[in-house]
Structures are given as structure tokens and as C-alpha cells.
């Protein structure tokens, strides 16, 4: 016997529920560029990274969003917990990416409520790759969304991380990964210091250093903004859940890094 509030969908996926019963709520950016929106001119997120450490994974991102050569926002949040044991870090077109992260969060919660138990970490990563694939028509027109996904796998008792490409291709990384405009520099930085059994403190240092290095080389990456007191977001994801590193900690570590790199001003600004 049909009991319903007017919908037909019977499954356990929220995005499929929207596609079936509330089509107009489902975001679709594929027509944006055809209607004359310049993909370069929408805010873009820049550098995010993830790597394993002794207790699980660390996921971090700077806070800057750019529109072409302009600053769109100095304090957007690009690392978003999707449930108690997983996070997405977004790079690319900020609007679609943030919406995808929000949908992903609801998707995981919805599944857990309907089915009575959460998805496995592999299942979550797979779901995200399907969502990226669904965005392909928009990506072809410049609305590219390429997130990182990381979490603590409670069954295997370890941290794990994935990167994605625009087609929804899903690649599990063994150690570390970074994406976005400054991703290359962040990766180079992590390559030198990454240690999969690092302590929390050493891990935090690795993250802050990689983001500072990225912001040094890539003008679109924010790094640490001491003037305004805006710090990168760094999350620890472990068996105990997700915890964010407090700003004073990041400040302390960043100043230590600066201390090792700063040179005294030379006479009259002329370097010999």
C-alpha cells in the first residue's frame, strides 16, 4: 500500500531523492557558461592538502578565494567535515564545490538515518566520485570541482585519503596529496618532510609549512595572514573523531617557521 507525501523515491540516497522527486532543488551548473557566465570570474578556492600521520589523517587548506586576479574572500572554509570521521577539502569553482560538500554531508547523514548504519569509508569515497561525475557537464565548461576526501577508516583502523579528477576518477593515495592552484608547491614541500608516523605537533608543522610554501610560490594561495589574524584550517581526523587545530597553535608554529627563514634587513635594501 502506498503511503507517501507525494514523492515516489524509495531508496537511501539523498541526491537520487532530489533527482527523482525534487528536481528543481538539485544543483545544475551545466547551463551557466552557455548563458554567458565567465568561469574564470566566479570565485575559486586555491590550495588544500591531506596526509597521513601517526593517529590518522590531517586535512588542511588556506582561506583565500580568488576571482581571476582579485580576492573574492579572505576567510572561506574549504575543509569541511562530512560526518564524524570524514572530511572533504575543496578546490576549484567555490560555489559548486561548497554545494557539493554540503550535499555530500547530507548524503552521508541521510544514508545513515534511512539504513540505520553509516557507510564504510570506501562507500563514502565512491559516492563522492559519483557526485563529481554528475558534475561533468559543468566541469567541461570550466566549473571544475576537484576535491580531496579523507577520513579515518574504523574497520581498518587507519587514516586514508583520496584524490579525484574531473571525470570522477578516484585515486587512493598512500601518503599525501594536495590540489588546487598551489597544490604542486604544497606537494613538493610535503615530499621533503612528510612522515607517516609523525606526532600531532610534527604533523601540524608539516601542514602549516606546506601551505606557507604554497602561498610563497602561488599568488592565489592565502597562507597565514598575521595582519588580519586569519589562519589556515587544519583538521585532525582520528579514531576519536575530528578536531580542528586552534589558531594560537598554528600561529606559534608559523612564527617558528618564519624564525628559521627570516634574514636581517640589509643596508639600504641592497643585497651584496
Amino acid at each position, binding site marked *: *500500500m502506498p*503511503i*507517501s*507525501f507525494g*514523492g515516489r*523515491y524509495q531508496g537511501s540516497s*539523498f541526491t537520487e*531523492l*532530489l533527482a527523482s*522527486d*525534487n528536481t528543481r*532543488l538539485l544543483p545544475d551548473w551545466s547551463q551557466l557558461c552557455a548563458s554567458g557566465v565567465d568561469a574564470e570570474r566566479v570565485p575559486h578556492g586555491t590550495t588544500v592538502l591531506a596526509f597521513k600521520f601517526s593517529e590518522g589523517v590531517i586535512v588542511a587548506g588556506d582561506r583565500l578565494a580568488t576571482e581571476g586576479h582579485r580576492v573574492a574572500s579572505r576567510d572561506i572554509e574549504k575543509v569541511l567535515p562530512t560526518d564524524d570521521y570524514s572530511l572533504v577539502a575543496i578546490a576549484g569553482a567555490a560555489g559548486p564545490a561548497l554545494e557539493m560538500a*554540503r*550535499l555530500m554531508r*547530507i548524503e552521508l*547523514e*541521510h544514508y545513515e*538515518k*534511512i539504513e*540505520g548504519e553509516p557507510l564504510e569509508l570506501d562507500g563514502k569515497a565512491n559516492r563522492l566520485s559519483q557526485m563529481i561525475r554528475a558534475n561533468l557537464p559543468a566541469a567541461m565548461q570550466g566549473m571544475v570541482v576537484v576535491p580531496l576526501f579523507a577520513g579515518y577508516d574504523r574497520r581498518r583502523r587507519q587514516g586514508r585519503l583520496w584524490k579525484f579528477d574531473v571525470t570522477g576518477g578516484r585515486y587512493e593515495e598512500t601518503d599525501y596529496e594536495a590540489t588546487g592552484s598551489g597544490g604542486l608547491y604544497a606537494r613538493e614541500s610535503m615530499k621533503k618532510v612528510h612522515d607517516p608516523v609523525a606526532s600531532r605537533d610534527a604533523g601540524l608543522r608539516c601542514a602549516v609549512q606546506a601551505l606557507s610554501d604554497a602561498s610563497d610560490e602561488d599568488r592565489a594561495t592565502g597562507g597565514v595572514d598575521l595582519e588580519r589574524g586569519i589562519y589556515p584550517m587544519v583538521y585532525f581526523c582520528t579514531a576519536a573523531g575530528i578536531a580542528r587545530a586552534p589558531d594560537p597553535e598554528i600561529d606559534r608554529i608559523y612564527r617558528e617557521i618564519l624564525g628559521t627563514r627570516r634574514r636581517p634587513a640589509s643596508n639600504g635594501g641592497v643585497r651584496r
Partner: protein
Amino acid sequence: MTMPFYVSPEQVMQDKAEYARKGIGRGKSSVTLEYDTGVLLMAENPSSLSKIGEIYDRIAFAGVGKFSEFDQLRKLGVRYADTRGYAYSRDDVRAKALANAYSQAMGEVFTREMKPLEVEVIVAEVGDDTLAGHESNAIYRVQFDGSISDHEGFCVIGGAAEELGSLLRAEYRAGLPLRDALRLGHRALQRAADREPNVTPENLEVCLLERNRVGRKFRRLSTDTLLELLGT
């Protein structure tokens, strides 16, 4: 030519209601109680199939009667709440609107279908002190024919609802601590199962909506936690 028998609408409705009540009466009861820092939902349930479930941040569901029917209702509630929360904001998802939607859907089935639903449900919402206008708890009961009522303090659904209601009316006090609310609920469910083996904590399904929890306020209590709280 055969003439169909005339049956008065009153008779049809009465028969359907009797059928539904019989179905519900065969199952076990479920109790919802407000305690000092939240709302407690309890059911006697020896199986691993849940009768109580999370709907949204501050909203929980409890059903009695035919499992397949109230579980469909529970899932409908989750779909309704998640869609609404996505379209508006998380704070815009309210128990009252959901209870009304249930009432419409269940009333529709009662009048249109041959077989009425053999279920009763509770939609409970815990208040949030940080949201102006959302501070108080809400408990709604929706019956098989779509009739809806709101309750303060406690609410019982299921076959023994009347009897347990009078027990709780006599013993319930506002602002009970969780431990006392649990014991009272346990005693009520024990009364419902009179002359049957004892309702052991292992056979209880207990869920909480905790006012002071951040974000999703729903929590399912494990048997161990329950034993500890009941002090047995």
C-alpha cells in the same frame, strides 16, 4: 442482476477503525517522556529491527503496530526532513510540520484504502535554548486515522496506551532527571507486559534527544549504558 449490499459510511469507518485498533493492540507499547535535559523515547523491543529512529537534528520518531508500515513512515519522515532542511535551513525543520504531514498521509490512507494502517506514531522534538522561539520540547501523536494530538510531559502509543497513560499521569513529574525518567518508563512498559515475563533492559530500545548535545541531538543507548543508568 445482483445488487451490491448497502453499507453505511459510519459502519465502514467503524469496521476499519476496529480492524486498525486490533492490529495495533497486538503489538507492544512505546513511551516518550520529557526529562530535565531532553526527551526520552522507549519501547519494548527484543528484535534488532528498530521502532525508534532519528529524523533530524532535534527530531525523533517512534512507531508501534505493523513494522513494515511504520518503518515506511519513518523513512518518509527522514526524506521530508532532509529535503526541507536542504531547501531552507536546518532550523526550519520542525516536528509540528512533519506531524501534520503524517496526519494528512495517514488520514488519506484511512479514507481511501480498503485496509487502514495498523500503526501509531510519535514525533518528538527537543528544544534548543540557543534558538529564540524554539526553547520548548514538543511531542505529537498521530493515530491510524490521521488524528493528531500534542502532549506535554509524556505520551504513550500502542495497545495499552490508555492504561499506561493513567499510570504516567499519576507518577510523572516535570523536570525528572534521566535516571528517574528511565525507571518510570521501564515500569510503565513492565505494566503493559503484565503477566508476561519481565521486560529486561536487554529487551528495551531506548533513544534520547539530548538538549545540550551539539548538532544532531539523537543518541541511541547501548544495553551497557542502559544497565548502568538503571542501576541493575
